[in-house]
């Protein structure tokens, strides 16, 4: 019954025959799918491990205490969007993310040890402890993010402008939530990107809520994609709980951008399993709704498909285990790393 409700706005699960056809026509190999399964597992294990650590030293709950301080926005449930997009990107491509950035960073190839260390505020972190969870910067894989909602769109457009200007075939991707897409920067960026045919891909991750605000009271229409279409930008509405669906749309968008065709928009329908931030009482949604979406867990879903395609359960478990080991090791590294010297706070405003 619950499944049926979700199928009203996501695609029905394919039969084995249709699944084989889909994978074949997409030109995807089992190894590629297994790699996506691993990446998604890595993200999930990372988020759940950070989530658990975050509550250490926070009883009673207080944001200022414990080994990880401040706000914490985790992405469990949204892995397929990050990995479906990230699997199409190269190191030289740019990703600009949001206040909920871990899945995007991992899918872009950021070292999870440095990522974890930054979240713990350690000197070995991506930014030497200066940025923290909402301000992750990794020049090596051209990843950045911001805690200010709506900030990602124009910044990615700027990177796309530079690629086009220099004649490089790199692309820039902006991730943002359905809440962020209400911001003026979304529409302004769409217009500029279409006008200048920028190699830009805007990914709207529609997880139904912006903080405590359901999209039913913040959007005049159920979706955002038609706004991009009104500016002559090809737009894809995809099942964000299905990594293959996200992957295929992104592949088209990336091909178009790399070949000088201009921007695309991908709107991925997804869900966050945890609160907006850790400590969120979630008064604004029903438990049942969360349970319903958990039935569509993108990792389980891909796992089931791989099993149907003949991959042994052990191989999946082995991937999952490897992901967990990598996360455990990253958190150990983070915890054992030293804090930065206090005096470093006073340097680095200017180069």
């Amino acid at each position, binding site marked *: 019954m619950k499944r049926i409700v979700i199928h009203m706005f996501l695609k029905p699960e394919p039969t084995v025959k249709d699944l084989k056809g889909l994978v074949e026509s997409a030109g995807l190999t089992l190894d590629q799918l297994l790699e996506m399964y691993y990446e998604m597992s890595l993200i999930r294990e990372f988020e759940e491990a950070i989530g658990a650590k975050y509550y250490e030293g926070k009883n*009673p*709950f*207080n*944001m*200022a205490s414990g080994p*990880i*301080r*401040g*706000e914490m926005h985790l992405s469990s449930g949204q892995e397929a969007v990050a990995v479906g997009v990230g699997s199409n990107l190269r190191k030289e491509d740019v990703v600009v993310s949001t206040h909920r950035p871990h899945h995007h960073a991992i899918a872009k190839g950021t070292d999870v040890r440095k990522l974890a260390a930054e979240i713990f*505020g*350690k000197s070995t972190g991506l*930014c*030497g*402890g*200066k*940025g*923290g*969870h*909402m*301000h992750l910067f990794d020049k090596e894989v051209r990843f950045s993010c*911001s*805690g*200010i*909602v*709506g900030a990602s769109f124009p910044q990615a457009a700027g990177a796309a402008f530079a690629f086009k200007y220099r004649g490089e075939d790199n692309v820039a991707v902006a991730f943002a939530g359905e*809440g*962020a897409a*209400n*911001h*003026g920067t979304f529409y302004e960026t769409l217009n500029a990107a279409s006008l200048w045919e920028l190699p830009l891909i805007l990914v709207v991750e529609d997880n139904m809520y*912006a*903080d*405590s*605000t359901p999209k039913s*009271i*913040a*959007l005049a229409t159920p979706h955002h994609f038609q706004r991009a279409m009104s500016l002559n930008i090809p737009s894809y509405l995809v099942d964000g709980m299905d990594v293959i669906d996200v992957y295929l749309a992104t592949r088209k968008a990336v091909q178009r951008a790399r070949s000088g065709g201009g921007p695309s928009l991908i709107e991925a329908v997804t869900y966050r399993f945890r609160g907006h931030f850790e*400590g969120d009482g979630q*008064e*604004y949604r029903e438990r049942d709704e969360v349970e319903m979406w958990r039935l569509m867990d993108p990792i389980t879903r891909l796992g089931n498909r791989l099993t149907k395609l003949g991959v042994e359960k052990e191989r999946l478990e082995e991937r999952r285990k490897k992901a967990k080991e990598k996360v455990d090791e990253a958190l150990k590294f983070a915890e054992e790393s030293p*804090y*930065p*010297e*206090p*005096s*470093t*706070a*006073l340097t*680095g*405003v200017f180069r």
Partner: protein
Amino acid sequence: MKMKGISQAIAQGIAQEMERRNDIVVLGEDVTYWGAVFGFTMGLFDKFGRKRVVDTPITEQTFMGMAVGMASVGLHPVVSLMFVDFLGAGFDQMYNHMAKNHYMSGGQFPMPVTVITAVGGGYGDAEQHSQVLYGLFAHVPGFKVVVPSNAYDAKGLTIRALRDPNPVVIFGHKLLTGLPFLPYEGEEDEVPEEPYELEFGRAIVKTEGSDLTVASVGVMVHRAMRVAEKLRKEGISVEVVDLRTLVPLDEETLSRSVKKTGRLLIVDEDYMSYGMTGEVAFRIQSRAFRELKAPIQRLTVPDVPIPFSEPLEREVIPSEAKIEAKIREMVR
């Protein structure tokens, strides 16, 4: 009644004014279920419903502009800017319109808007969620700037703002909200049940002393008071003045204090340069130059963003230890 923190007091002040008047509408992000995150609108949704308590899409420029339009035709919007750090996303409507329309229109359009925003760091929220920035607003002609340090003041100043025909921005420090998920640096205050107003431009002497005056606002008032308490036992007598509003600024009360003590330390959580400390120092030296026994000093966030990592954050935000060291240096 006893109240812990400014959030409940601000929300109570708004509720009481909303009951009396129909022209008040509350808008901003997450002002219903979450009480604007920091509790400044908590309970209003249950009392007044979505008609008067409106969750907006994430559109700071638009809802600030709408507040300007609402005020121009007779409403008194109460706008939540969730964290002051987000002002950039809506600032044009604020500083070029909200702050100027009354003046530009030759006085035709009053601009009764109350903006309430959360400020401050010290709990690990990093560069984009830890600033106070009231200096920016105080710099632009057209905003009244209110920084309450306790529940009693918060309620009285909020009601005053709601009866003011001008743009007033209330800066509530997160560590004074009294919410369970954040540290609390204030005390419990006795807050009258009935509505009351406190005048703007009235500083208050919180702790009397004779050797040195500390002037501050918000959470730093509490830190200074705790330091004053500690130093009193050693025979160093510190007077703490809570400015309460930066615009208008009560020069009279502060200069009276400085004339008595001869020394002034200004403590601020804002960035150092071109901000509150420089302004207050200038005004006081021009009023109390002859009585000053030492140069006016300041303690602020040095001109760097607020970093994430705990030891770095501690390095930049004025602490009790830093206030104490500075005072010792000045009275030596």
